[in-house]
């Protein structure tokens, strides 16, 4: 029993069985993480490089913890302060690292498709930790684990994804995953931040009214406005965005049911999510972070089983 793919480049390439296998394995790792000794020796003969070409707090710490909990050897690389600034190419950098006998690459890059490019040129297993505006598969997996823990499954559950859909790799990975697992998805946000034809391409619902989405859903996954990826004016101001599309306690309390609030982080408090919502009992944001380690352990564990010699 193993994953159908040698790499984890995106949820798009996974089958439903792969997703189930990862989530089931993650539940067992979550159990390991509750023990006094939170470490297992599974990957003690594996070396992993964390290749981060883009800033990250949660994903990077979470991957590093997952690797350490599996007893893998880890090296960390960030583009700033490396020879990347001297003009070394991505492939050269990675090949140099791999020649030091590294088995797996965890990679974040601001360019869409960077891990897919690498996968064609290097023998090591690659885990995509976010590539541009394409995919962030482990985030979607940990979101799925968090939802199914609270709601007892994904099939038939109603998930609203709210905010900057256009620039969000979290949104895309979540859409792929939720649709594969039989959940219903509604996207909500300003028209300028929701791609055209996404309704037809993915079989999701689209609304420009956040209240409507909240009234419909069981879970709302709220996304950050990715200002760093926006090179044109897509809405008038953050304050106005908050008024029209932000989620306030008042709005949540006016619904006739209690929905769960998720956010992949980092939160811009007072923009997409008000502070009292982020810290309320309905928020499962910190569950998501906790589940992140277990999910990443599961992914690394399952991919390491298909290790091929890199020498």
């Amino acid at each position, binding site marked *: *029993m193993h994953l159908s793919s040698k790499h984890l480049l995106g949820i798009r390439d996974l089958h439903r069985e792969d997703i189930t296998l990862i989530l089931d394995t993650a539940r*067992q790792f979550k*159990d390991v993480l509750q023990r006094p000794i939170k470490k*297992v020796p599974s990957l003690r003969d594996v070396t992993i490089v964390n290749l981060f070409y883009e800033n990250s707090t949660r994903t990077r710490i979470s991957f590093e913890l997952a690797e350490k909990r599996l007893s893998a050897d880890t090296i960390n690389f960030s583009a700033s302060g490396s020879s990347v600034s001297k003009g070394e190419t991505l492939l050269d950098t990675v090949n140099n690292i791999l020649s030091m006998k590294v088995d797996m690459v965890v990679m974040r890059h601001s360019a869409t498709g960077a891990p897919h490019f690498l996968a064609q040129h290097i023998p090591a297993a690659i885990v995509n930790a976010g590539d541009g505006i394409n995919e962030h598969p482990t985030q979607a997996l940990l979101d799925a684990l968090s939802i199914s823990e609270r709601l007892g499954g994904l099939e038939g559950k109603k998930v609203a994804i709210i905010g900057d859909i256009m620039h969000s790799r979290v949104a895309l990975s979540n859409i792929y995953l939720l649709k594969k697992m039989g959940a219903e998805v509604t996207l909500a946000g300003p028209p300028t931040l929701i791609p055209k034809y996404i309704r037809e391409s993915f079989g999701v619902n689209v609304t420009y009214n956040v209240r409507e989405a909240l009234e419909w859903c069981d879970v709302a996954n709220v996304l950050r406005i990715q200002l760093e990826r926006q090179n044109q004016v897509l809405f008038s101001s953050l304050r106005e965005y908050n008024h029209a599309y932000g989620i306030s306690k008042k709005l949540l309390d006016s619904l006739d049911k209690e929905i769960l609030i998720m956010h992949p982080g980092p939160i811009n408090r007072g923009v997409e999510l008000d502070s009292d919502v982020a810290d309320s009992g309905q928020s499962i944001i910190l569950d998501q972070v906790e589940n992140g380690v277990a999910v990443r352990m599961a992914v690394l564990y399952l991919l390491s*089983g298909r*290790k091929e010699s890199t020498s």
Partner: protein
Amino acid sequence: MEKLKGVNTIMEEDQLKLTLKRLSHELIENHYPFDNTCFIGIQPRGIPVSDFIVQYMQSLHPECKFPYGKLDITFYRDDFRGQIHIPNITDLPFSIEGKKVVLIDDVLYTGRTIRAAMDALLDHGRAGKVELCILVDRKFSRELPIQPDYVGKSIDSIVTQKVKVIWGNEKKVVLYEGIS
């Protein structure tokens, strides 16, 4: 079950039950009144054995408490690269700190499973003493220096053979030619 070549039944149901009961009595002899003892079955195939033994001991000594857990060793295996094993549930609803632990499994062959089980056990605490109870011991095939304390039946077998305990309607232990 799949078609097996050269199947030899080495224990019929009657004998299997008798042996399990004998093992239970040996455990009672050494551990009564079970004040400081716990029983741990190894996932997945040790569980039917440990279920039977613990239930039988409980029926003989309803006044005693039998702390009983299940241990999954998937993450501790040294051979998982070839084939990924799906983890089972580890359920240890008690502390093993300072306890006498009896590990229970169905077949002892190379000893690697037990090695992994002891590693897994140590991560849950420092047991006072660890004993090993085995239904079928395949002698002369050990790859590690591990010996059982309680043995249901010792058999001679060669590497190409496999031993399987079947817990269907008809319970039995069979020896057959493995396809490898």
